[in-house]
């Protein structure tokens, strides 16, 4: 398996002096689902943004290696916490946002819209305006928009954070299904430990000041039985106490 994201000694700083995190070394393998939890303010969202090249690294480097080069695709796509659809674009035009400016014919655009809408279970919603959708539906369109560019890497920033518990559970299972169908590499940030353990192949714990990966938990539990298994509960507890330690440590730092 090839490494698709590789950060080396990565640091980000907003004021050019104090780093949000420092010396971050992360490697994501092709097709892997990695979740990130951490102390708030540890820079979980920032990590995704620097990988997506939305903000520059302060020190160190991000290397993104995608297996194939295809002009109709983008290497990376991102799903945001608030779906952030453009309210003046119909659903279908929101989905094609990332296809504008790359070499994609209108026919292919329409195909991708149809395919990704089916993938997120909103087949007939292409003509709607975003304000006609529920929060969960909007979030699905945000996922469809990311899948439409057929990325190798999907960066997800607390995508289900603002949803009610039932919608959230449904979308988690849907995401796993999509992941199993499309085999993207996913880096998923969340503050919900159960979600992190339920979704991830492994869970990275971000803590300390400046933040670094303080621990890593391989999950390795069969996904079909994951939510009910005892091993799942144990792993959740493990991560939770790890996070608790990190929070205590953060509070002790002056």
């Amino acid at each position, binding site marked *: 398996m090839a490494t698709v994201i590789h950060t080396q000694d990565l640091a980000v700083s907003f004021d050019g002096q104090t780093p949000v995190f420092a010396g971050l070394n992360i490697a994501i393998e092709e097709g892997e689902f990695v979740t990130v939890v951490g102390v708030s303010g540890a820079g979980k969202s920032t990590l995704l943004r620097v990988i*997506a090249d*939305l903000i520059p690294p302060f020190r160190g480097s991000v290397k993104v290696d995608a297996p194939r080069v295809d002009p109709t695709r*983008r290497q990376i*796509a*991102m799903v*945001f916490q*608030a779906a*952030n659809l*453009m*309210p*003046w*674009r*119909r659903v279908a035009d929101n989905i094609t*946002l*990332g296809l*504008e*400016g*790359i070499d994609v014919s209108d026919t292919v655009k329409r195909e991708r819209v149809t395919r990704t809408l089916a993938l997120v279970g909103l087949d007939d919603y292409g003509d709607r*305006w*975003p*304000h006609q959708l529920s929060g969960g539906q909007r979030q699905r369109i945000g996922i469809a*928009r990311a899948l439409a*560019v057929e990325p190798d890497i999907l960066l997800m920033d607390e995508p289900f954070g603002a949803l009610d518990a039932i919608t959230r559970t449904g979308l988690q299972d849907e995401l796993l299904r999509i992941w199993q169908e499309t085999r993207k590499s996913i880096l998923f940030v969340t503050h919900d430990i159960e979600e992190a353990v339920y979704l991830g192949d492994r869970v990275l714990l971000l803590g300390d000041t400046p933040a670094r990966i303080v621990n890593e938990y391989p999950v390795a539990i069969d996904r079909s039985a994951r939510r009910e298994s005892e091993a799942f509960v144990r792993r959740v507890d493990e991560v939770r106490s790890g996070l608790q330690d990190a929070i205590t440590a953060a509070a002790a730092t002056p």
Partner: protein
Amino acid sequence: MKQTPRYVLAASGLLGFLLVWEAIARSGWIEVHLLPPPSSLPSSLLSEIQAGYWQSMVVASLRHYAAGFVLGSLLGVSLGVSVALFPRVEASQAWLARVFRPIPPLAWIPFAIIWFGITETAAAFIISIGIFWINYFTAMAAVQAVDKDLIEVARAFGHRSFLALLRKVILPGAAPGILSGLRAGLGQGWMTVVAAELFGIAGIGQRMIEASGLLASEVVVLYMFSIALLYGASDYVFVHIQSRILAWQR
């Protein structure tokens, strides 16, 4: 109890007003040139139309109005947008705007005459000033209020150049604000049309001054209502266009 439809109440309010006015005007308490009865308006409209005044004055005023509207709106929106986009421009205009903003459009009349003479250009210039400021400030605020998260989304999906962001996020995002500024300008324009024509440029304002000089006050009232009608019509058309452009809003 059955509820009276809103338009019935609205119509009866207007009708009641006209009746009271008619009654007072006919009672003989007030001289007729001080308060002409509304019933005198149709015949005065007819005679103004027959003499060809009404059409030519309305057309002339519309011409000044349209020129002033287009000029003021174009400059106001484009400068307002640029100010919001570039912090250096924003900083350099801060005091300038503070100095020039409070000067009312009518205070520009002397310079309008000095620069352009008694011409239609002078009228359009005066009309454009009030419209300019409204659009300048609303466009600026509208662009500043564009959701920064949407700009980040567009960047994340590969739209990184300034022009792409302007086209895909900033202008559509600011459109509701810009359009409401244009609409406010539409009303502001009519307020200055009459004043801009008072000093001799052919149009509704000039005709009103002529008529008042002859104590033909029913003609003055006629043109006052003509302005209301023209404003109502232009606003109606604009709102129609606006709601088409902003169909995406709830």
